[in-house]
């Protein structure tokens, strides 16, 4: 199903962060960050290293608990102090890590199935069927019995995407999903992400793949020093002579990576 990318005022709000503050090691990594994701939104986080992109993503599924601020899932406030709410939110807000973080002792199939069994209490058979379905969606039907150590980086990342999708998340957070990959393995992961976008998955992705994300994103979110400093449609922010910090940053990346970006 192809989603209509024009702005729909009636799109339901999926995830909203208000005034998120996070401190790590005594320094303020996130400073009053607001962010809204409506259903089907694809937003891309860009900005220099250390600007807080990764921390923001980890706060949005509460792997990091913010010092202050509010988080709403489906317009319902989440109580950070209640473990049951943390677990539920994390199921609904999937996370893709730069380093894949697959479970080394489990096959691809088991990697996807284990949370279905442990968290959703599905039977082994049901969980493994779902796992096979998700792995076929990312083009890995023939790798279900392989262990992470037997897979390439691109394949590992696709398993990790299948693992997140199996939980039926409402939002997918992607933390530089291609940064740890050899250049020739990047495209297989980007293809999967593009398919997800076509299916209308709500996504927030930190990445340095500027041209790819410009073709996909409804909005660029530029972060610097723990704050969101610019936010807008990529074609506006990247327009010739826009004078935006985003344009400045992106052209520096393009100079370094050449045609790729």
């Amino acid at each position, binding site marked *: 199903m192809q989603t209509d990318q024009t702005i729909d005022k009636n799109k339901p709000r999926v995830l909203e962060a208000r005034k998120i503050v996070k401190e790590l090691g005594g320094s303020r990594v996130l400073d009053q960050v607001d962010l809204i994701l409506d259903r089907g939104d694809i937003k891309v986080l860009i900005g220099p290293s250390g600007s807080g992109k990764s921390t923001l993503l980890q706060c949005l599924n509460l792997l990091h608990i913010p010092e202050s601020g509010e988080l709403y899932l489906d317009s319902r406030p989440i109580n950070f102090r209640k473990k049951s709410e943390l677990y539920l939110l994390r199921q609904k807000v999937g996370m893709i890590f730069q380093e894949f*973080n697959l479970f080394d*002792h489990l096959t691809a199939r088991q990697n996807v199935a284990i949370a279905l069994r442990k968290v959703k209490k599905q039977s082994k058979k049901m969980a493994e069927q779902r796992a096979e379905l998700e792995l076929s969606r990312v083009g890995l039907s023939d790798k279900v019995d392989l*262990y992470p150590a037997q897979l390439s980086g691109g394949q590992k990342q696709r398993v990790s995407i299948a693992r997140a999708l199996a939980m039926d998340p409402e939002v997918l957070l992607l933390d530089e999903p291609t940064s740890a990959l050899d250049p020739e393995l990047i495209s297989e992961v980007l293809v999967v992400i593009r398919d997800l976008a076509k299916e209308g998955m709500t996504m927030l992705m930190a990445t340095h793949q500027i041209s790819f994300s410009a073709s996909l994103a409804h909005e660029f979110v530029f972060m610097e020093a723990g704050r969101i400093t610019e936010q807008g449609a990529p074609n506006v922010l990247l327009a010739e002579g826009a004078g935006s910090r985003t344009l400045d940053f992106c052209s520096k990346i393009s100079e370094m990576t050449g045609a790729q970006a």
Partner: protein
Amino acid sequence: MQEIVNFFSPIAGSLPFVFSGLWVTLVLVAGAMGLGLALGIPFAVIRVYGPAPARWAVAAYVWFFRGVPVLVLFYLFYFGLLAWLGQMALLSLLPLNNAFFAAALVLGMATGAYQTQIFKGAILSVSQEQLKAARSLGMSDFQAIVSIVLPQALRFSIPAWSNEYSIVLKDSALAYVIGVAELMSRTRSVAAITHKPLPFTLFAGLIFFLLTWAGVRALKRLEQKVRIKGYTQ
């Protein structure tokens, strides 16, 4: 050849007696290793992931049982602590004045301290990013530790655990000091009666050697059997 046969011939008549001690040794070591495992795994988890007071308590336990020689522990527990506890009416049902029970408890608690360290190291060698990934899928910390961290950590522990087995096996010979009728105690008895210590002691040594060899070999097989495919640490 004839000389060797003559040398070991005094053993022949007392083999059943010596082997009854072998049986006691096997049960003692199995009990101690089992208790050590039952203490070591949860204590290691507490040591790595637990709240501070629990971590300190486990650290104190480890320091005590690593710091005091097993021989001293046997005396302290059997003639001291357990004898004292045994006087309490509530505890009179427990076999506290039983030497075998005391020996299994002491060896088990001592190896539990070492096993805590073994499993702690193994847990730390599992990438903690996997724990993060498990939590990101909605698993509780407990679920993530049990189904993601421990299955890998236990695999990594097998070589060190096998080493620990060989040490506990040999430490179990010290249980004769509190009167446990294990292999060494039986050997000493017949050696004293026959006035021929050397063949009996050599024989006991050979049995300990074979038990070590068999156990280490079995654990090596287990290690290969549960090895993760394609994985090199």
